């Protein structure tokens, strides 16, 4: 089951790190970094059902 309740201890600190990751990167490099990040996190999650739910939630309007 995909957990969409708050689960990050310091959300502002995490968000700041995420933005810092992209500082000074050209757009195509940013897109690549994001894609790599998604693949790393997806592998960590592993569970096929959770990944399917996440893919679905990401596409929802």
């Amino acid at each position, binding site marked *: 089951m995909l957990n969409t309740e708050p689960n990050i201890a310091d959300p502002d600190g995490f968000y700041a790190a995420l*933005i810092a990751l992209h500082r000074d990167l050209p757009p195509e490099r940013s897109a690549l970094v994001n894609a790599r990040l998604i693949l790393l996190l997806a592998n960590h999650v592993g569970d096929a059902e959770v990944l399917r739910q996440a893919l679905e*939630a990401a596409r929802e309007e």
Partner: protein
Amino acid sequence: MEMRLDYVRSPDQDAAAPVRHPVIVVGAGPVGLALAIDLAQHGVPVVLLDEDDTLATGSRAICFAKRTLEIFDRLGCGGPMVERGVQWHVGRVFFGETLAYQFDLLPEAGHHRPAFINLQQYHVEAFLLERARALPSIDLRWRNRVADVRPAAEGVSLTIETPDGRYDLACDHLIAADGSRSTVRRLMGLETHGESFRDRFLIADVRMTAPFPSERWFWFDPPFHRGQSVLLHRQADDVWRIDFQLGWDADPVAERAPERVIPRVRALLGPEAAFELVWCSVYTFSCQRMERFRHGRVYFAGDAAHGVSPFGARGANGGVQDAENLAWKLALVVQGRAPDALLDSYGAEREAAADENILASTRSTDFITPKNAASRAFRDAALTLARTHPFARRLVNSGRLSVPAVLERSPLNTPDADDFAGGPAPGAVCADAPVRVDGRPGWLLQAVGDNFVVLGFGAEAAAPGAALAEAWPVRAVLVVPPGAAVPGRRDLRVLEDADGRAWARYDAKPGTLYLVRPDQHVAARWRHVDPAAVGAALARAAGRTSC
């Protein structure tokens, strides 16, 4: 509203030699006035200088946080401000056409003061001024501009410019609460350092009777102001603050013109809305601070010491906490009851607090104004996910609203040796709770007051008051369950825990004891009474020992 404050010639201007005062405060804004009142209440006479003869022009700071109101309560003017202000605790965040989510800043009952009131800065200053005028030990001098500052090891001398010409003054301690363009800072050749943001914002204050509730509404990319953000707040007197993000390329002079402002307001309110434009201003901001807030006998407080973005209401609220932090320390030192070293802790504590406010407001600004395509994508992702997924609401940042700093690294704290699962840790400000005093309803913070206090829970915690009072003016306050038997001692103030909230908020057990500073921050706490430990913590909190 404009209030004239008359220049009156002071006898100091006719003195043969410069008159020396214990404390001079420069700047009669919210921070300088709060500091002067606090010092006067602690028994220290103050000369308060201001270059102007009016209160703030325009609404300026409008959001006053719960902690600030508790401080104003202690200063004797919180009540009328809360009555006059607009109370609020709910914020709504919109993205495009729809609501992304809403939040509640004070979801639980049992607090005397609301999460926030919105009240124009000139009203706040007027209430503070009324209180200051009632205190004979405050000597207010309008149209007294600092023309020169000469700091020295043994004191500070000043040259003051008035409508009658110049005169000299001297003091033991000088406090610069003279705003972001501090004259004292400039005259001393000191600087602030930090980050400036390449963005411009328009404030439009409009008077209208509108159907909006008393809430904070924040729009990202709304249909009436595409590509930018807008913030709406209700103030007193049916005045509404609308804050439009304009972008860096906006012309700050042209955007202030009513013919440019009115269509923007109309786009938000609709073509039928009737409103009157009261005040507008175009501003930019920086997040910055001085490296040190104490320079010998000169102390910087409020905007003179630090600047933040307006998102989070951390400017004036942070400044009033500076004032409260400095007042009691200065009073003890001036009265010879604490060593000069105590004043170093003002810098250590408030520089750390400024860093916290700067970090929070910088992060809000980075979220509101993305600096590149990737940060914009993350912002929009968080905003769209927030509609259905609770985790994303924690990532959306339209301002992290002012909460009192936890002075966790303060040299005045005695770290916990006993186990606590909750309650205010050393450095944190005391929590309020409903209590009964002599059978009548009251509030815990009002009973704590502005001295060093040992705050005990249960009759088991009644011991140390009298023993300590001989060595140090500490008051003992005891919180007991309703109807509990207590020792009938005159030196003990007994509060009944009206509905169990006080014990819960302090993670109290019978015998739990908190040592509280005059600014209502916790210095130390224990599970059992140990007079020697309390005495040591008290000496440390008063700067009399260092560990």
